[in-house]
């Protein structure tokens, strides 16, 4: 048993230095304030600066495996992940979920036409899955795609699409087959500049606009843009959603804990630093333990994946663990700030310019998006434990 990650040989130091220099030289100065979570720029100029940055990386050969047709050197890949992550600006533009769908179900032509431009920041993608009346019950979606000659004609409405306001392409699920339920759903590649596509940014509880509503008024999609086969959309989506869930569960755990300890030192409770309060210490101890276990659950699941022993419960389980702990840590941070926790970004009394207040509000994106935690619990129970399916009303 071990959790060793093979050390990166010293011979890669030059690669790391060159990459660091490259990032320092090309990293854009954004007007947009960076916040926790998967957030989306609110200014067109920032999006263009980010595209230029990602293009420069791509053209210099700095490409992550998930966007590449062939896998790169594993050490270089790790350095790339580390350094791009540490840069503090996004290096993945849009929602890259479709890459998994194209890899598993796309045609060679679709892969060639879309994967490299996605990696280069030339094509920003959005996901067009959820609808106002089809959230957790995604297979009841009602957006229609009706065959008309060499095209499908799409009518309907989507919601919760990140990056849609800046997107070039959409990964769309629509009902094309004359059956209810999952068998009627088809996955499409949609050119977001097609006539009849109307994107309306949606302001969320955070006060920011990280999601959009998207309306389709007789939008035409060529038949060649179907991913997989007609009626196969649910399977296509299932493969890519599983990837998203394990990606969501992969967040780090220990660092936020040190921030909490720091808050507990700075803020007072009953006349003394909160860190000396027994109840505070117990709560911090509980969060610290669960943050550490989150890392070990990640190691457990990675090992099962490597051994080919993943279960249907693994990805939902890590998603629930991460998202609920993340919320609780933000709540604890606010509690530590006492009455000052009412001051948010922009107020001179705010702590760390309202970082934790925003994290607290945004935390609900993790517990609800990517399949709500209630759906995750259904998946664990039904697919992981083999409990009987929930009887459904009708398709």
């Amino acid at each position, binding site marked *: 048993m071990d959790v060793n990650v093979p050390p990166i040989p010293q011979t890669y130091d030059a690669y790391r230095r060159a990459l660091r220099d490259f990032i320092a030289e090309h990293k854009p100065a954004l007007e947009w304030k960076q916040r926790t979570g998967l957030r989306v720029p609110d200014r067109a100029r920032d999006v263009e600066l980010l595209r230029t940055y990602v293009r420069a990386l791509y053209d210099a050969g700095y490409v992550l495996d998930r966007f590449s047709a062939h896998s790169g050197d594993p050490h270089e890949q790790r350095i790339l992940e580390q350094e791009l992550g540490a840069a503090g600006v996004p290096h993945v533009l849009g929602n890259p979920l479709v890459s998994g769908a194209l890899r598993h179900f796309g045609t060679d032509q679709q892969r060639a036409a879309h994967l490299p431009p996605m990696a280069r920041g030339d094509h920003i993608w959005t996901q067009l899955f959820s609808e106002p009346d089809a959230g957790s019950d995604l297979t009841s979606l009602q957006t229609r795609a009706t065959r008309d000659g060499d095209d499908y004609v799409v009518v309907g409405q989507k919601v919760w699409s990140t990056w849609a306001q800046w997107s070039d392409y959409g990964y769309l699920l629509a009902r094309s087959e004359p059956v209810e339920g999952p068998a009627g759903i088809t996955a499409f590649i949609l050119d977001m500049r097609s006539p009849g596509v109307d994107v309306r940014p949606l302001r969320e509880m955070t006060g920011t606009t990280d999601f959009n509503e998207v309306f389709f008024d007789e939008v035409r999609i060529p038949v060649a843009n179907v991913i997989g086969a007609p009626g196969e959309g649910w399977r296509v989506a299932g493969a890519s959603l599983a990837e998203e869930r394990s990606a969501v569960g992969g967040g780090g755990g220990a660092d936020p804990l040190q921030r909490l300890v720091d808050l507990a030192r700075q803020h007072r409770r009953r006349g003394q630093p909160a860190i000396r309060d027994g109840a505070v210490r117990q709560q911090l101890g509980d969060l610290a333990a669960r943050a550490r276990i989150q890392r070990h659950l990640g190691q457990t699941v990675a090992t099962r994946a490597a051994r080919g022993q993943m279960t249907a419960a693994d990805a939902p389980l890590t998603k629930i663990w991460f998202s609920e702990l993340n919320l609780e840590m933000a709540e604890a941070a606010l509690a530590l700030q006492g009455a000052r926790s009412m001051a948010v970004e922009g107020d001179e009394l705010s702590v760390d310019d309202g970082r934790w207040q925003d994290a607290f509000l945004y935390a609900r994106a993790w517990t609800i998006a990517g399949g709500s935690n209630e759906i995750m619990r259904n998946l664990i*129970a039904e697919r992981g434990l083999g409990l009987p399916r929930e009887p459904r009303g009708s398709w």
Partner: protein
Amino acid sequence: MDFGFGDEQELLRETTRRFLGEHQPIAAVRHSMEERDLFDAGIWRRGAELGWTAMLIPAEHEGGSVTDQPLVDLVALAEELGRALNPGPLVPCNVVADAIARFGTEAQVKEHLPRIARGDVACAWCLSGDGTPERGAVEVSATRVGDHWRLDGVARYVHAAQDAALLLVVAAHGEGTVNLLVPRPSAGLSERGLTGLDLTRRFAEVRFDAVVVPHGDALDGGWDVVERSLAVATVLQAAESVGAADLVFESTVDYAKKRVQFGRAIGSFQAIKHRLADLLIDLEGMRAAAHYAALALNDSLPDAAEAVATAGAYVEDTFAHLCGEALQLHGGIGFTWEHDMHLFVRRAKVNQVLYGDGTWHRERLVELTEAATPAGGA
């Protein structure tokens, strides 16, 4: 990275499970519990042949492990004993073996380790007067009299003291601590068996009334010996709890699939499903915490202390919660004496307060996290 048991450890689990299934299944534990005779020296010796007490003992003293990670081997084994609610002194025997192997003199090592490895000598660990791992809670005092130590006082909540032939006694000596090996029986040594909540293990209050042991029977170390023993005990008990929780969880899922009410298996109701999903999350968290603690302690990783505190903070409280939920999901049948569920509830409740409770380990983890957080900003 390979964060799971290897083939040899899986084989060890299988062998242990088969042995317990044949020789000491829960039904047999129940029987001996009713007879108030939980320790079977014969089975303990046969268990010792399968490595129950040998893993932390070097090969030259008749010990030996399956892999080069003895503590991880032992955790694989402990999970199986926990799963079968085994009453045996697995934790104290291995704690004492480890302490002697690490801190013992050559004479102590030669005298005790082979006999513990063979299962001829069962051990108990007399930690403190109130069961907590605190210096201030140690109620046995050691006084130097010539070339002997004289022990006076009491240790309570000692697992399997009634079955032990060798006690490791934590005693206060002035401001310091001595760890003494005391044979049982000895003059002045007595114990009173507790009427206990956990029906599948025995605990005792051990009294020392001018017990005299030779000077040479002290281990080479003070409170550091206690810290090490506490870490080993925390990891092994966590492993027993993981194994027990595994069985409790499996049985509860099976029951939810079979039990029909309102014309449906109760496991088809979302109110039940979501609770079972939560219990799986709890169980996987317990396992990950226990396994990482074993790995970190065995390999002396830099975060071994944090890893052990994490297991102590999470595993036993979660085990107790899981058993409570499992009992509730079983409904009336779980409330009967005949059903095994209450035995697990009882076991879990007692594990919560042994070797430092959750509160104690959470406090420890915060101390360690504070030390790792520089003042003035993370």
